[in-house]
C-alpha cells in the first residue's frame, strides 16, 4: 500500500526533532521502519540509527521488516531502552562500577530475597522487618519497600537524596545486597546509564556521534528515568530525535509512565509535530466504538469495511468460555464477509484485563484441542526442578559472585554448607568443584555434568551439548508427567538459545550475554502459532482480525481498585483492547463467577459496554 502524504512526510523527515502522534492503526510501525530504511539507504555520510522500542516483540518485528539489510546490526541498534542501556553499560560501564555485561536480577522473588537478606543482616532493619508481624505481613512490607525503591530509582534518586531516612537505609542495604552478588536490577540499568551519561558527558557524546538519528516508539509510555536517559544521551545540542506515541493509548501510568513526556519532548527539543490520524487497521464498527470511548479521537479517513461488534452474555465463566468457543468455531467454519479468505486461529485473540480471567477458557480450549499460546508475562520460567537447578547453575557460571542464587541452589540441593557460601570464588570452576565435593543428590550431579558440558571457553559455550545431556537424563525418567515437563522446558531453552545465536553477531556466544538476552526478554517472538491469550498490556502494538475481550464485568474491567485518574487509565486500557481489532470485536461477560475464596457471586456488566453503546439486555 502506498504511503499517505503525512506518512511520507515523516518518512522523509531528516534533521531536527519530530513528534509524531499516531493513533491506532495509523501505520506507525510501517512509518518507523520506512524512515529507518530511507535514512540508511539515502542519507549521506556515515552513521547508525538508534531505534528504541517499548517491547522486544516490536524490536524483533522491526528487524524482520528490515531483513533486506544483511548487516542491519552494523547500521542500526533496534531494541528496548533497557537493552540499549545494558549494551552501553557492558561497553562503557566502568566509571559507574559495571564491568562487562551486567548480571541482571530480573525476578521479583530474587529481588525480594536480596532485600530480605539485607534487612536481616542489619540490626536496625532486622528489627523493622520482624516488627511487621507474621511472615505474610513481612512479605507485604517487603513488597511495598521494593516498590518504594523502584519508584526512587525511576525518579533517578540515590538513597542519600531521599527524605524518608528509613526507606533510604533500606534502599542502600538492598543495593549493597545486589552488589554483593555482583548484580543489578532492571531499574539500575536506567539509573546507571543516566549517571554514566551525565557524569561522563564525553561518553554520551560518543553515542551521539555513533547514532545520528534516534527514534523512540510508544513514547507515551516513557517514565521519568527513561525520558531523562534519552535526554542525557542527547545533551543540549543533539536534536535528531523522533518520538512516536499516542496519549490515548497510555496504559502504563500505574508503572510510573506518563504521556506528559510527549509534551516535555515537544518543549525540550522544540519538536515539530505531525498527527497521524488515519486508521488503516480497523473497520468502521471498531473506529466508532473507539470514538465513543474517546470523543477526542479523530480519524481522518476510514476503512470502507463495516465490521461487527458482538456482545456475549453468559451465566457463569464456564458458560462464557463455551460461548466464546462457539463464536470462534462459527467464524472458523464459515468465515465472515468482512474478512478476506478463511478465518484462522492465528488471526484471533482473546484479551483479558488480567491473567486470572483465562482459567475457564484455557480448559475449554484444551478440550477443543485448538492451538493456543499465552503471553501473559515477559518472564522466562523453567517449570521442572531439573531445569530450575540448571538455570541456577548457569547464573553461577556466568557470575560466580552471585551469592543469592548460590544460596538458593545449596538449599535446593540440601547442602546448606556455610563454608561454600562464605568463600569468595574467582571463577566458576572452583565454585562447582567445591559444590560437587559435598553433593548428595543424583539430580545435582547430573546438572553439574551438564554444566561441565558447556566447556571452559568463555566466548563459545556449548549450550546445545549441555541441553542434550539433560535430554538424555529426562528420557530415563519413568514418570510421564515429570518427563514431559522437563522436555518442554528443554524445548523452551533451546528455542531461546536458537534466538540468541541468530541475533548475536560475530559468533560471540558468551553465557553472560545469553542470560542477559533472556533477562531483557529479547527472545520473545513477535508472533506464535495459534490463538493468542493476552493481557491487554501485553497485546500492546499487536493487531488481529478478530478480538474477543472477555471478563467485561465491573470489578474486573475496570479493576475494582481503580479510582479517579486510574479509572481514566482503565478506559484507555479498554481503548487499546478495542483498537487491537481489525474487523470483528466480541465482548463477553458472565453474570456470576466464582470468587478466589470459593463462593459464587453475582456480577454487573462493565460500564464500558454501555459507553460503546452495547446494552446488557440481549
Amino acid at each position, binding site marked *: 500500500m502506498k504511503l499517505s502524504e503525512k506518512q511520507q512526510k515523516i518518512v522523509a523527515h531528516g534533521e531536527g526533532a519530530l513528534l509524531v502522534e499516531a493513533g491506532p492503526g495509523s501505520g506507525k510501525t510501517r512509518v518507523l521502519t520506512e524512515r529507518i530504511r530511507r535514512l540508511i539507504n539515502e542519507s549521506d555520510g556515515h*552513521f547508525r540509527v538508534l531505534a528504541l522500542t517499548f517491547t522486544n516483540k516490536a524490536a524483533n518485528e522491526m528487524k524482520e521488516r528490515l531483513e533486506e539489510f544483511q548487516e542491519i546490526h552494523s547500521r542500526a541498534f533496534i531494541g528496548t531502552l533497557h537493552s540499549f542501556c545494558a549494551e552501553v553499560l557492558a561497553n562503557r560501564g566502568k566509571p559507574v562500577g559495571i564491568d562487562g555485561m551486567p548480571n541482571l536480577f530480573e525476578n521479583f522473588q530474587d529481588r525480594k530475597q536480596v532485600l530480605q537478606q539485607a534487612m536481616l543482616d542489619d540490626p536496625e532493619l532486622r528489627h523493622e522487618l520482624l516488627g511487621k508481624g507474621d511472615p505474610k505481613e513481612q512479605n507485604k512490607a517487603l513488597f511495598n519497600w521494593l516498590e518504594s525503591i523502584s519508584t526512587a530509582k525511576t525518579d533517578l534518586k540515590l538513597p542519600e537524596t531521599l527524605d524518608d531516612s528509613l526507606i533510604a537505609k533500606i534502599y542502600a542495604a538492598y543495593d549493597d545486597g545486589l552488589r554483593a552478588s555482583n548484580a543489578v536490577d532492571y531499574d539500575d540499568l536506567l539509573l546507571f546509564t543516566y549517571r554514566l551519561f551525565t557524569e561522563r558527558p564525553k561518553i554520551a557524546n560518543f553515542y551521539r556521534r555513533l547514532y545520528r538519528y534516534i527514534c523512540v516508539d510508544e513514547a507515551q509510555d516513557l517514565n521519568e528515568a527513561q525520558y531523562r536517559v534519552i535526554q542525557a544521551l542527547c545533551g543540549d545540542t543533539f536534536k535528531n530525535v523522533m518520538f512516536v506515541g499516542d496519549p490515548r493509548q497510555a496504559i502504563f501510568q500505574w508503572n510510573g509512565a506518563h504521556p506528559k513526556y510527549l509534551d516535555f519532548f515537544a518543549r525540550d527539543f522544540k519538536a515539530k509535530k505531525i498527527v497521524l490520524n488515519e486508521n488503516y487497521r480497523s473497520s468502521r464498527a471498531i473506529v466508532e466504538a473507539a470514538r465513543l470511548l474517546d470523543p477526542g479521537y479523530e480519524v481522518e479517513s476510514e476503512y470502507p469495511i463495516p465490521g461487527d461488534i458482538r456482545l456475549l452474555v453468559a451465566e457463569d465463566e464456564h458458560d462464557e468460555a463455551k460461548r466464546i468457543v462457539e463464536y470462534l468455531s462459527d467464524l472458523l467454519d464459515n468465515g465472515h464477509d468482512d474478512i478476506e479468505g478463511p478465518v484462522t486461529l492465528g488471526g484471533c485473540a482473546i484479551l483479558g484485563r488480567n491473567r486470572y480471567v483465562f482459567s475457564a477458557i484455557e480448559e475449554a480450549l484444551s478440550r477443543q484441542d485448538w492451538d493456543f499460546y499465552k503471553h501473559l508475562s515477559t518472564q522466562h520460567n523453567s517449570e521442572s526442578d531439573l531445569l530450575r537447578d540448571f538455570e541456577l547453575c548457569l547464573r553461577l557460571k556466568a557470575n560466580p559472585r552471585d551469592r543469592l542464587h548460590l544460596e538458593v541452589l545449596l538449599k535446593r540441593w540440601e547442602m546448606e554448607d556455610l563454608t561454600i557460601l562464605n568463600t569468595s570464588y574467582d571463577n566458576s570452576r572452583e565454585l562447582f568443584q567445591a559444590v560437587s565435593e559435598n553433593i548428595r543428590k543424583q539430580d545435582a550431579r547430573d546438572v553439574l555434568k551438564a554444566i561441565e558440558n558447556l566447556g571452559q571457553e568463555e566466548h563459545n559455550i556449548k549450550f546445545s551439548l549441555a541441553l542434550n545431556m539433560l535430554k538424555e537424563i529426562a528420557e530415563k525418567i519413568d514418570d510421564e508427567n515429570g518427563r514431559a515437563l522437563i522436555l518442554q522446558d528443554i524445548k523452551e531453552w533451546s528455542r531461546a538459545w536458537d534466538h540468541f545465536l541468530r541475533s548475536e553477531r560475530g559468533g560471540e556466544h558468551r553465557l553472560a550475554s545469553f542470560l542477559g538476552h533472556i533477562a531483557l526478554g529479547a527472545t520473545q517472538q513477535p508472533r506464535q502459532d495459534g490463538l493468542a491469550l493476552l493481557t491487554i498490556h501485553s497485546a500492546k502494538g499487536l493487531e488481529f482480525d478478530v478480538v474477543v475481550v472477555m471478563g467485561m464485568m465491573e470489578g474486573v474491567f475496570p479493576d475494582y481498585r481503580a479510582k479517579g485518574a486510574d479509572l481514566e487509565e482503565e478506559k484507555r486500557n479498554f481503548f487499546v483492547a478495542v483498537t487491537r481489532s481489525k474487523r470483528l470485536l466480541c465482548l463477553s461477560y458472565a453474570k456470576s463467577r466464582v470468587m478466589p475464596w470459593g463462593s459464587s457471586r453475582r456480577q454487573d456488566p462493565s460500564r464500558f459496554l454501555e459507553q460503546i453503546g452495547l446494552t446488557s439486555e440481549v
Partner: protein
Amino acid sequence: MTTPSSHSGIQITEVRVRNYRSLKSVDMQLGPFTVLIGENNSGKTSLLEALFAAIGAGRRVITQDDVFLDNGESKVPKDREVLIDILIHPVNEEGILGTFPEGSFWVELWGSGIAQYHDTDNDFVAIRTRTFWNHGKAEYVTERRFLKEWPDSDSIENAQVQTSQVTARHLEPMAFYLMDAKRDIHDELQNRSSFWHKLISEPGLSDQKIGEIEETLSKLNQEIIDGSDVLTHVQGHLNDLYQTVSANKGDVSITPLARHMRDLNRGMDISFCTRDAQTFPLSRHGMGTRSIAAILTFRAYSNWRQMNADGGIHSFLALEEPEAHLHPQAQRAIFQQIEAIPGQRIISTHSPYVASRADIGNFRHFKKNGSTTHVTQLDVSDLNKDDIRKINRMVLNTRGELLFARALVFFEGETEEQALPIFAEQFWGQSPCSLGISFIPVEGYKGYLPFVRLAKSFEIPWYIFSDGEEDPIRWISRTLKKVGNPEEPENNHNVFIIPDNKNFEGYLADEKYKDIIIETIIEVQSVNENHIDALKQQWANETDKLAAIKTELSKAGNKTKYATPVAAAISNMDDIALKFPPLVRELFDQMAADLDLTPTHEAPE
C-alpha cells in the same frame, strides 16, 4: 601521478607484540612513516609479519611455529599465547585528535568497538589478535577482539575485551599490505589476487566501447587467420570436431588474439624502454626495475582506492627493503616514490641511502639479545628542533652510516674528524668504515646530547673523545647526567678527556712529537727547497717550540690543513710506543675490548 588529499581519518599509533617468534615483548610506536633498522635476523621481518597476521589483507594463520620459543626450551608451553595489539587513534592532517568527528566512517564501521580512555574519555580503538592453544580442539586458535582499555605495557594479558568480536568487515578498510623483499612485477602480473589485477579487473569502459573493441578484435582475428595458410589449414581440420562431438551446428575457430575484453586483461603487460633502446616487456627487465615497478603498481592501486572510497580507506603498506636490487642513486630516489604512496607506511631497510632521507624520529632500531628482540626509538622528549635538525643533517652527511654503525666516536671538531680515522686505520690495519666505526664531530662541546641520546636509544656503543678545558668537561657532565650515566666523566669507561686542560692541538704539541710535527708543518708550508731551509731556520730559532706548534696548529683555517698530514706522520712513526698518542690508544684499546676487535699493533711493553 596524483596524491589524494583526503586523509583516512585514522592512524595506527602503536603495535604491541607478545610471544610472536623472537618478539617476546615488543612495543613499537608507529607514525605516518616508520623506518625499521637493525641487523639481519633482528626481528624486523617478524614485526611486519606480526602486523600482517593481525590486520593484513589476506591474513595468514598464526601457527605453533610462530610462538616464541625461549633459549633452552624444546617446545612451546601450552599456556603461552601470542598477542598482537594494535592501537588506533582518530587523526586529521594536523595530528592526533581526541575524538572521531561526527559522521566519521570509522564510527559507523566500528560502533561501540571504539573505546574511550578512562581518564580523558578520548576515543581510541584497540584490536587484539590472540592465538592460544584450544584444549577442546587440540589446536591453536586465533581470535580478534576489541579491547576496552589500552592497558599498561607490563600487564596487557589482563586487558578487558569488548563483548563484540572483530570481523573481517571491521578490518578490511584498513587492510595492511606487506610487500616483502622478493616482490616482483612479474608475479604481480601473473597473480590473479595481486594489486595489479584488483586494479585492472574493472577498466571502466562503457558497454558500447567494449562492443566496438570486441568487434575490432574479431576482425583482426579473421585477418590473421585469412592471412595465414598454417592457421587456415589447422582450422579446417578442427572443424571435423563436429563429426565426433554431436553438436548441431557451430563454428570452430582459432583466435590468435583474445576476443573478449575480460580475457584481454589476462595478457595485459607493461612495456618499458629507456632512451635509445628497444621496448621490452617489464618481465624481461632486471630485478631492480621489476621491483620498482611493483612498488609503483601498489602506489597506483592505493591511490585509486583512496580516490574512489568515500573516506573509508586507510591504506597501510609495509615494504621490506625497498633498496633491493637498486643502484645507490636509485636507492636515494626510491624514498621519494614511497613517500608519495598515500596512507601509512612502514619500511625496513639496510640501506644508508634510503635511511638518510628519513627523519630521525621515525626510526625504530631492532636488536636481538639472545633469543629476544628489543626495539628502541630515539627519545626526543628533551631535544629541541635544532638538535633534531643537527642529527638529521649528520645522518645525511654520513650517508646514513650514523644509524648503521657498530660504534660511534663523538668529539668536538675538525682536527679530530680528520686525524682519528687515520690513527684508527693504522691501529686496526683496515679502514674504520669497513669496521663499522663512525667518527662524528658534534660541532662544539654543547652538541653532544642529541648524538649520545641517539646512540643510547639505538643501543650503538658510543665514545666521547673530548678536549680537556673546563667548559667542555662541565657540558659533558651535564650530558652524561641527562642520559642517565654517571655524572663524572672519569666514571664512564667510554669517555676520554684530554688531560691538563688541553685541547687536541695542544695535546699533540708534546715534547715527543715536537720534531715530527715541525717537520710536517714545514712540509705543508714550503713551496720549494729553498723555502724549506728558510722555514727550518725559523723553527730552529723558536724559543718555545711547543707553544709555537700549538699556535700554528690552532690558527684559523689551519686545522684542516695540518690534521691529516700530522696524524699520518705520527702514526707512521717507527716507535710503536709513539705511533698513537696515549689517550688515542686508550680509546682504541677500550673499543677493541668492547667490540671484540683485534688491533694489528700490540700495545707497548
